[in-house]
C-alpha cells in the first residue's frame, strides 16, 4: 500500500506547478518522530518544565480573553440578583458568622491552653500554615485527568505541593505552578493519594482517587478492617503536606468478597470537588529548613559545633520528603539543645521524632 502511495506522490509532484515541498510521508515521519521525542522528554526528564512555564506566561493573556465572556455573565448575573435572594443569603451568613464566632472564641481558649500544655511538656510548637485564597479559572481540558486551574501562582507565593481546601474539606493538591496560575490535581484523580485517618477510631490509611467517578478508594485494607458506612475520613497529617484533621471523604460503600483478602471501600469526597469557585491553598512553610541552618551560626559565638549538627540534620529532612515538616519540627529542638551539648543530639533527635513514638 505504501508503495502505491509513493507512486501516487511521484506522479503528483512531477509538474512544478503542483509542487508541495517534501512528500506527506516524509513530513509524517519527521513530525511523528519529533512528537515521540517530545513525549519521551516531557514524561521522563525535567527539561521542558521551564519551557512550559514560559509558554504558559505567554498564554495567560489569551486565557484572560477567553474567560472574559463568562466573567461578564457572572458579574451581570450578580448585579441583577434579586432582593429576596440577597436577604436570604445575608440571613444565612449572619447565622453562620454567629456560630463560627462562638467556635472561634473556644478555639482561642483552646490554642492558649494547648500552647501552655506544650510548653509544660517541652514539646514542639505546631507550625502555623500560610494560606492563599484562589479562584478557579477553568477545569482541566483533559477528560482523562481531574484537574483545575486557579488564578494564583508563583507570583502569589503558591508552592507546588500545597493543599487545596474549600469550606467543607480537602479537594486536592497543587501539582504545577506557573507565574500567575497553578494547576490543582483533585483528590478524585487517579494519580493522587492522600494519607487519611478514620475519625471514629484513628485508623490510618491512604485514599486514592478513583479517576472516573467522583469517588475515592481505600485499597489494601484487610477484609476484617473496622470501617463502616458513614465513617468520616480526615487528613492524618503524617505526610507533612496536608494539615491534620481536615475532612476528606465519607465512606459510602464497604464490601467484602470471598475471592479477595482486601475490603472494597468507596468514599465520596466531602469538599465540593466539582462545584466550588473559591479554594484555599494551604501550605506548611518549608522555609524553616533554611532558618534552621542560619540561626545557630548567628546567635552563638562558637559557630563550628553548632553548624555541624544542623548540617547533619538537613539530609534527614530533605530525604524524607513525605514527612518534611515533622522532621524539621523535630530537628529544631534537637539543634537548639545540641548547641549547648553536642553529645546530647542523637538522643534528642530520636525522642522528638513523631514516628518513633507512633
Amino acid at each position, binding site marked *: 500500500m505504501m508503495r502505491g*502511495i509513493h507512486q*501516487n506522490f511521484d506522479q*503528483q509532484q512531477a509538474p512544478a506547478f503542483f509542487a*508541495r*515541498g517534501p512528500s*506527506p*510521508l516524509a*513530513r*509524517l515521519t519527521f*513530525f*511523528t518522530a*519529533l*512528537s*515521540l*521525542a*517530545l*513525549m519521551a*522528554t*516531557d*514524561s521522563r526528564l525535567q527539561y*521542558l518544565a521551564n519551557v*512550559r512555564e514560559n*509558554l*504558559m506566561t505567554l*498564554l495567560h493573556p*489569551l*486565557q484572560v*480573553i*477567553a*474567560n472574559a*465572556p*463568562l466573567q461578564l455573565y457572572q458579574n451581570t448575573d450578580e448585579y441583577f440578583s434579586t432582593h429576596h435572594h440577597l436577604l436570604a443569603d445575608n440571613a444565612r451568613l449572619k447565622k453562620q458568622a454567629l456560630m463560627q464566632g462562638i467556635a472561634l472564641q473556644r478555639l482561642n481558649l483552646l490554642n492558649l491552653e494547648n500552647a501552655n500544655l506544650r510548653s509544660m511538656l517541652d514539646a514542639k510548637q505546631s507550625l502555623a500554615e500560610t494560606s492563599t485564597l484562589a479562584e478557579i*479559572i*477553568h*477545569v*482541566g*481540558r*483533559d*477528560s*482523562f*485527568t481531574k*484537574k483545575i*486551574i486557579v488564578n494564583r501562582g508563583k507570583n502569589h507565593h503558591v508552592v507546588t505541593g500545597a493543599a487545596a481546601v474549600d469550606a467543607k474539606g480537602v479537594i486536592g493538591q497543587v501539582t*504545577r505552578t506557573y507565574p500567575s496560575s497553578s*494547576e490543582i490535581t483533585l483528590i478524585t484523580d*487517579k494519580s493522587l493519594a492522600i494519607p487519611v485517618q478514620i475519625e471514629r477510631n484513628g485508623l490510618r490509611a491512604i485514599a486514592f482517587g478513583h*479517576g*472516573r467517578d467522583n469517588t475515592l478508594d481505600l485499597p489494601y485494607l484487610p477484609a476484617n478492617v473496622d470501617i463502616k458506612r458513614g465513617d468520616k475520613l480526615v487528613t492524618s497529617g503524617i505526610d507533612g503536606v496536608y494539615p491534620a484533621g481536615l475532612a476528606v471523604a465519607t465512606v459510602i460503600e464497604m464490601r467484602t468478597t470471598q475471592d479477595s483478602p482486601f475490603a472494597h471501600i468507596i468514599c465520596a469526597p466531602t469538599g465540593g470537588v*466539582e462545584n466550588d469557585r473559591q479554594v484555599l491553598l494551604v501550605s506548611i512553610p518549608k522555609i524553616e529548613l533554611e532558618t534552621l541552618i542560619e540561626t545557630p551560626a548567628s546567635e552563638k559565638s562558637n559557630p563550628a559545633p553548632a553548624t555541624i549538627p544542623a548540617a547533619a540534620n538537613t539530609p534527614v529532612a530533605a530525604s524524607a520528603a513525605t514527612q518534611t515538616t515533622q522532621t524539621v519540627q523535630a530537628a529544631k529542638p534537637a539543634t537548639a539543645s545540641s548547641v549547648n551539648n553536642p553529645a546530647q543530639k542523637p538522643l534528642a533527635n530520636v525522642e522528638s521524632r513523631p514516628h518513633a513514638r507512633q
Partner: protein
Amino acid sequence: MRDNKLRSIYLSLFAAFICILFPWSGIALTLRPDFMLLVIIFWLLRAPNQCSVGTAWFMGLWVDLATGGIFGQYALAYTITTFFAVIYQRRLVLFSSTQQLVYVFSLLFLSQLILLILKAFAGHEFAGWSYFLPSVTGILLWQIAVSLGLNTGRHSHGN
C-alpha cells in the same frame, strides 16, 4: 491574495485556539468538539499549500500546552490525522458533501483514537463511549458550517 489567505488561516487557527481556551466544564466539556482539528482539516482541503502536516503539528503543541498534558500527544494525533487528510485531499474535494462528512468524521475519530491509545500507555482508563462524542459534535458543527454556505473546497457545485 496569498497573503490574505495566510492571514485568514492564522486568524481562524487563533480563533479555534481561543475556543479551546474557553472555560468549558461539565457536559459542555464532554461535548466540546475539537475546534482546532476541524479548522486544520478545513484549511487542508481549501489551501493545501499553506496549511499542512507541519502546521497541524505546531498547533497540536499549543493544544498540548492548553490541556496541560504531556507535550506531543495532540501534536502526534494531529500529525497522523492530517497525513490521512493530505493523501486523500485531491479526492476529498471531489466528494459530495455527505461523503466528505463521513471522511471528516473518520478523521476526527482517528485523532481521538490515537489520543486514547497514548493515554492508555500513560495508564489512564477508557472513560466510556461518551469519550467519542466530540467527534459527533464535530461533524455536526462541520455540517452546520457547510449548510451556512462555507465552501469546504468542493469543486462539484457546477463549476
